[in-house]
């Protein structure tokens, strides 16, 4: 059975020039493309192309069926969104409700940069540099000497 199947596939593979094989390959490519854009609702963090869930399999079949009926990619996506909502799109659409999702990270980055900038500026204000007084110089010297004495020992 396996050999027969393999032979059959070989036969099919060897007749690429024909329109049928071309359109078939094209359909295959589009089906895979679409499946990679649609979320498997059962497993949620996989596309229906990756998932082995039964529903994902069914939806892949629906995609294929509709493609072979001549439906456009956009029509098929609309079909899925009408049933499963925007969530079915692995890449969420840019809408009023998804603005935060799209631009939130950039906003956080900007807020972080602003905080860092303000913090650094304030810190510089606090660090006023002045020369050590006589007394401080002397203390520093004794401390340093004490340290090197200890090391020498």
């Amino acid at each position, binding site marked *: 059975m396996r050999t027969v199947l393999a032979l059959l596939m070989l036969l099919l593979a060897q007749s690429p020039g024909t329109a049928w094989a071309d359109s078939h390959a094209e359909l295959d490519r589009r089906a895979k493309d679409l499946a990679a854009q649609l979320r498997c*609702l059962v497993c949620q963090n996989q596309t229906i192309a990756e998932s082995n869930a039964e*529903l994902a399999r*069914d939806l892949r079949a*629906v995609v294929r069926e509709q493609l072979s009926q001549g439906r456009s990619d956009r029509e098929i996506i609309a079909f899925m*969104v009408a*049933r*499963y*909502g925007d969530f079915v799109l692995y890449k969420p659409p840019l809408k009023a409700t998804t603005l935060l999702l799209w631009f939130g990270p950039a906003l956080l980055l900007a807020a972080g940069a602003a905080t860092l900038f303000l913090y650094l500026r304030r810190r510089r204000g606090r660090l006023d540099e002045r020369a050590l007084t006589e007394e401080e110089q002397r203390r520093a010297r004794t401390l340093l000497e004490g340290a090197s004495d200890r090391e020498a020992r």
Partner: protein
Amino acid sequence: MFLVVAAFLAIGLGLNPREVPSPFVGKSVPAFAAPLLKEPQRKFSQEEMLGKVWVLNFWATWCPPCREEHPLLVELARKERVPIVGINYKDDPARAIAWLRDLGDPYVATLTDFEGRMGIDFGVYGMPETFVIDRKGVIRYKRIGVIDRARLDAEILPLLKELQRP
């Protein structure tokens, strides 16, 4: 800053990622014509329910939460006299018939969705799923997952009362 992050995380944890906003509420019930479980030669369509407030429930014998939910459906049908149409989703008809015989049959009609095509048209992805449909055939409520007592009392019964008002 920490508090802001903590607040967002708290909100996020409170949300259930499985509760995807339904695109169905407010839309007309998808058209269907599916064979009856007990009389497969006869087909049943949503048009037969026009003019009634009704409930549509997807269930299967392979779905343990459906068993948990079943007594509430039986109660809903008997006490509130709400017509419930059952869709037996990707199931073995013999088992489905035995289930209804053993656990009680709350459905005015049980349809077979052997291939799951009706399930796709209703955007079903977590069994059981329940829809409340008004007299004009508009979906007013959708629940993905089990209906429990709290949800029945707090969400479904008040909605049914409101819709059934003449």
